[in-house]
């Protein structure tokens, strides 16, 4: 049976295919990716996009956690100073309750406690990166103003708002405690307690009751402070979780789209051999035909 006498087109087509294969292998090796365009692996291309968004989200959560931790640590440190002040107030008050002191001694104590009042206001008006930390959600204004007409000597001009923040796909954390809950809570108002100590020292009576009030406020603030300790722990744990999640996502990304470099190198080698062989075959089809042998 007759065969196609012109074999060149077939050989050229084979050559083109091996060249295409070489080109694909080299693209993978150069980019390190097996999915260089969606058609390389359409399903993986889609999954890689979802993976990229999840990774981006995890990275963002880590950044946000970092921002919040900074504010919380500052708040916690301010509360620590408040508690130290209250301890000192208790000491002074206990001293002042001692019947052996005279008026001028008690006045001296009252003056020192008055100094604490302004320090407390300063601590309560802590500002971190432009926001008043204990103002609830009215963070642009200092929450406590001196007010001589007020029984506690200060007035709270913040609000009771709390903010939540998403730091995980199913996790939101509260990021602030308003001063109205923490420092000037009705029944546990530290400013009120300090004011009463001052007054009692000045008057020379009711110092014991005032010291009790301060102890109560002291216990209350300590209990409230736990919020910050717990939050920081929770955020640390979430950081650890997110770090391991980003590692897993990176592994998934590699599985979906990373080039198997060893395989690509081997393929490249065999594609080049194949290309060489095809070229030689084309070269050798310059056979003599019968015409060369006619005399």
């Amino acid at each position, binding site marked *: *049976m*007759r*065969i*196609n*006498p*012109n074999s060149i*087109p*077939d050989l050229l*087509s084979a050559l083109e295919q091996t060249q295409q294969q070489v080109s694909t292998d080299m693209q993978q090796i150069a980019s390190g990716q097996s999915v*260089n*365009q*969606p*058609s*390389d*692996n*359409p*399903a993986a*291309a*889609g*999954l*890689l*996009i*979802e993976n*990229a*968004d999840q990774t*981006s*989200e995890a*990275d*963002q*959560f880590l*950044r*946000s956690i970092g*921002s*919040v931790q900074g504010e919380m640590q500052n708040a916690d440190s301010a509360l620590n100073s408040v508690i130290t002040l209250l301890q000192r107030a208790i000491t002074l008050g206990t001293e002042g309750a001692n019947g052996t002191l005279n008026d001028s001694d008690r006045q001296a104590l009252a003056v020192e406690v008055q100094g604490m009042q302004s320090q407390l206001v300063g601590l309560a008006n802590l500002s971190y*990166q*432009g*926001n008043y930390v204990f*103002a*609830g*959600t*009215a*963070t*642009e204004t200092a929450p406590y103003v001196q007010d001589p007409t007020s029984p506690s000597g200060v007035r709270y001009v913040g*609000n009771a*708002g709390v*903010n*939540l*923040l*998403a730091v995980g*796909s199913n996790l*939101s954390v509260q*990021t602030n405690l308003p001063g109205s809950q923490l420092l000037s809570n009705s029944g546990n108002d530290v400013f009120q307690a300090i004011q009463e100590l001052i007054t009692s020292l000045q008057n020379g009576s009711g110092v014991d009751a005032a010291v009790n009030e301060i102890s109560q406020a002291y216990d209350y603030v300590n209990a409230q402070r736990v919020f910050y300790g717990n939050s920081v722990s929770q955020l640390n744990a979430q950081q650890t979780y997110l770090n391991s999640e980003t590692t897993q996502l990176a592994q998934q990304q590699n599985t979906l789209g990373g080039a198997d470099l060893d395989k690509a190198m081997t393929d490249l080698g065999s594609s080049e051999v194949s290309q060489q062989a095809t070229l030689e075959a084309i070269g050798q089809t310059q056979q003599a*035909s*019968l*015409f060369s*042998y*006619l005399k």
Partner: protein
Amino acid sequence: MSGLSASLATALSGLIADQGAMQATTNNVANVNTPGYSREVPILATSDPVVLGNLTLGTGVNLQKVQSIRDPILETQIQQETQTQGQWNALVSALSQTQVNFTSSSGDIGSAISNFFNSINQLATSPADLSLRQGVLTAAGNLATAFNSTSKNLSSQRSSLNGSVAETVDQVNQLTSQIAQVNEQISRLENAGQSAGTFEDQRTQLIDQLSSLVDVSVVPSDNTITITTATGTALVAGQQNFQLSTSPDSSGMQQVFSGTTNVTSTIAAGQLGGLLQMRDQQLPAIENQLDTLAAALATAVNGVQTSGYDLKGNAGTNLFQIPASTAGAAANISVAITDPSLIAASSDGSSGDNGNADTMYALRNQGIVSGQSASDYYANMVSGVGNATSNATAQQSASSLTLQQLNDERGSVSGVSLNEEAANLIQYQQAYAASAQIITAINSMMYDVIHMTTLTG
């Protein structure tokens, strides 16, 4: 003498026939590299014998005709496969270009969506911070730009395909006109009783070229052929060709007309079929998905924005501006706010409240676009484009392979083999030499007859 004369005539017929056969061989060898050439075979037949008494004597050989060897069924199969290949070639080329827009890069839509939501979460850590608010506006701007530029690229591609449609129709018209002319030449030769083999080869080539451009159906009719598209639009009827024309519709897209009938949707294969499919179906579908995504995302964000309060305690206004209809959303989406304080992060009017920012962030993983999150919808879209491209590439390869095999078969039937022609050459040459030798002998015998009756001296 009549015997010798008869033998002379017989030998002469051999010379003439062999000369003619040589000519066919020479023509084959000369055309060994001509694309589409079908080898010619001389058809030799014994001349009618004469009867003398009870002797039946042969009168030599007759070169009846020179026949081109071709397989018409194979030709038809090649034309069909050429149409298929033309269509897939056009689709692969166009889809490969489209998919560049959806290949991962730092400015692509997927990254822009991620970065936009990231900026919202960052804002929620400190909602009154103007630089974080500006960050949201910047990310929103980048998102709008990503949509705009992808949409522009797709639109640009559609224009270019549109131009190609008009050019292809021109090429089709040129070919049908040429085919009609060749038909005329074939008819003329056949009416004069001559072989039109060369012109038939030419016509086959032209029809193959036409097949790569548009779907064709070739039907023999009278003594010529009629060519229509697969759905019956007339292209060539014998010596008459029917031009197709193009005319843009209201959106500027070229429509293909046969006379006054719009045949655009009937063209199913060939390059024209592929171009029209891409321009009128595939590309608009992708553009529609892009518009759906842009519109849904903008609408959802605007919905949250207008339910909250900005930094000054006023009700929020739209963050994104989009057209009233979904169509054109991706091309036209823009950021409607330039003042960062207008971002509505607060849910109650207080400047440090982040409730509305939290709500806006929650959109990231909500099914806001046809039940899917924005990112998932985009991922599926990209996957779809990738699938279409890889399918088209696979079909193109398969079609290429089939066409190659058909061409191989055609070559085995109609291709010129130099070895075969050389062998034929030897045969005809020797036969010619033998006939010439016989004529020499007959000449000598005639000389003897003439001089038979001359006595010398």
